């Protein structure tokens, strides 16, 4: 469906470099990256708003690198929707149909149909200044979809809408994808990638640094940067040692982790997901892989319940649900024991 071959584009001091992406028909591809990483520029290259300095862009087996925007079967929904404020909702949706010089009757028919699909029939005659974020999002989607694109590009589509509407919009995206639409969704939020993506690409400083199935990327991040995107907060700089017939990782603070067998370089990082760590107020009777004693420094509410910061010579973050936390009867300055399997400790070479 879409192939980017060694696409490079210089923009001032920043450059998208050697971008290679292949997206088959019907795939939901999430491109994950911080602001300024080049996500939007990449979408603009695919849409045809700018031309690459080198490399090729293929859509449906056609080289579209030098093709005009108007001739590409691509729809782009902008981050803040870019709704035309001088037109009604109807005018916005009908805009592309007027460009194609369709007859008034057909325009009316197609606008009404897509407005029904997007649940915005009741606001068709309104100007857009007083519409909510969710309504604007649907107008922007309708305006793009009415043109029947083969490839839908979404630039941070959840960035400007209320949390309560996000699930609704996600359902809409999933439905569109199930109906066969290929989607590239750009975001900085790994949770969107987890919940929507067939495939994830992580972009940083104009390079795609990791690509793959979401579970692979988030389970085995190639470096600290990707790990942060996977929501991992526990990072430990370590030296890897082969000792007593097993691999160990020794932290700067001399804490030692048992890690699964593999071949490791001399130095690297150990990553631990907050929800892979078990916490208890009493010393476990049997320690299988890793047991660490520490003191609770902070207890903070988090998106999923409670986040506990434990000082065990190194700082650990542990996630608990509110119920799990209540059952533990622990407070700040309580002594606690942290346990985790050696498989939970993800080892990365270098310092990420």
């Amino acid at each position, binding site marked *: 469906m879409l192939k980017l071959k060694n696409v490079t584009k210089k923009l001032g001091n920043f450059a998208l470099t050697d971008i290679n992406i292949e997206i088959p028909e019907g795939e939901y591809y999430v491109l994950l990256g911080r*602001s*300024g990483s080049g996500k*939007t520029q990449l979408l*603009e290259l695919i*849409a*045809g*708003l700018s031309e690459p300095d080198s490399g090729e862009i293929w859509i449906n087996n056609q080289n579209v690198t030098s093709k005009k*925007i*108007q001739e590409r079967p*691509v*729809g*782009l929904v*902008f*981050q*803040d929707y*870019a709704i*035309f*404020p*001088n037109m009604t909702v109807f005018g916005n949706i009908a*805009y*592309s149909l007027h*460009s*194609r010089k369709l007859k008034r009757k057909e325009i009316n028919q197609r606008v009404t149909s897509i407005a029904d699909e997007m649940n915005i029939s009741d606001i068709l005659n309104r100007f857009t*200044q007083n519409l909510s974020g969710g309504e604007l999002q649907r107008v922007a989607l309708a*305006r*793009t979809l009415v*043109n029947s694109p083969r490839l839908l590009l979404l630039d941070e589509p959840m960035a400007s809408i209320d949390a309560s509407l996000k699930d609704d919009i996600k359902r809409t995206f999933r439905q569109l994808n199930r109906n066969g639409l290929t989607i590239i969704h750009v975001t900085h939020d790994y949770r969107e990638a987890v919940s929507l993506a067939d495939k994830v690409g992580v972009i940083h400083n104009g390079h795609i640094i990791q690509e793959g199935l979401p579970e692979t990327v988030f389970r085995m991040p190639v470096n600290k940067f990707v790990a942060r995107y996977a929501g991992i907060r526990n990072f430990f700089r370590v030296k890897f040692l082969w000792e007593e017939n097993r691999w160990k990782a020794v932290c700067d603070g001399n804490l030692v982790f048992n890690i699964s067998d593999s071949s490791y370089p001399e130095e690297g990082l150990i990553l631990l997901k907050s929800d892979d760590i078990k916490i208890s107020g009493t010393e476990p009777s049997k320690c299988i892989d890793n047991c660490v004693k520490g003191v609770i420094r902070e207890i903070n509410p988090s998106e999923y319940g409670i986040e506990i910061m434990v000082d065990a010579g190194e700082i650990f973050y542990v996630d608990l649900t509110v119920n799990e936390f209540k059952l533990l009867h622990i407070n700040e300055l309580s002594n606690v024991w942290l346990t985790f399997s050696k498989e939970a400790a993800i080892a990365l070479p270098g310092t990420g």
Partner: protein
Amino acid sequence: MKNSLFNWILLILSSLVLLFILAPLAGMFLHTGGSELIETVRDKDVQESIWLTLWVSFAATFFFAFAAIPLAWLMARKNFPLKNIVQGIIDLPVVLPHTAAGIAVLGFISRDGFLGNIADALGLSLINNPAGIALAMAFVSLPFLINSARDGFSAVPERLEKAALTLGASRSRVFFSISLPLAWRSIMTGFVMMFARGMSEFGAVVIVAYHPMIAPVLIFERFSSFGLKYARPASVLFIIVALAIFILLRLISLKKKEVQLSPDAEA
């Protein structure tokens, strides 16, 4: 206490500036009797000169707008080599002494000049002609329209134009359906400013055309020939007409539905 003293100083200084503008105008109005004013209204020469001033300035603004507005869009949207120099050229008429501007325009439209030569070939003379007056007015007032329109286009978020392009619109359709309507208020403000500036021009016009007399030249002529007393009623009448037109145009431009433009979110 400090704050209060500061406020008093601000108030006094601001009042002085406003008084400086209003006092001479008020004095002129107060020194002009009703009968003198009515007599001036009936004066055919005055009527003709005010009418000439209005329509020539309007025509100059209207016709030059066709080229000035696209130039303003270019200045707002495109980066090109020597752009700062182009901006300097646009602003040049504002800093030139207006009589010098008049001399420059006269050189351009006289029979020896480029435009004058072409006009001459067509059997026209631009000197002492409304067309020459329009050129002189446009020369000194164009920056007002271009700069205001440029600011208007700059305030239109570029992503709206990009969105229109991705929706299959041609560059010209994007300009006419998105950029122009959204920059409309600034363009109209620039239009009014250019019109008003052209209307009040004396220095450049008097070099190009003493006759037919536009209102500022007529006022000067009455002053130099008959004195202050005779120049005053014509001045008052011209100010009243100019103000009325200015207010009317502002109202028309403001009537256009105001469109909220959010700042460009693009990085």
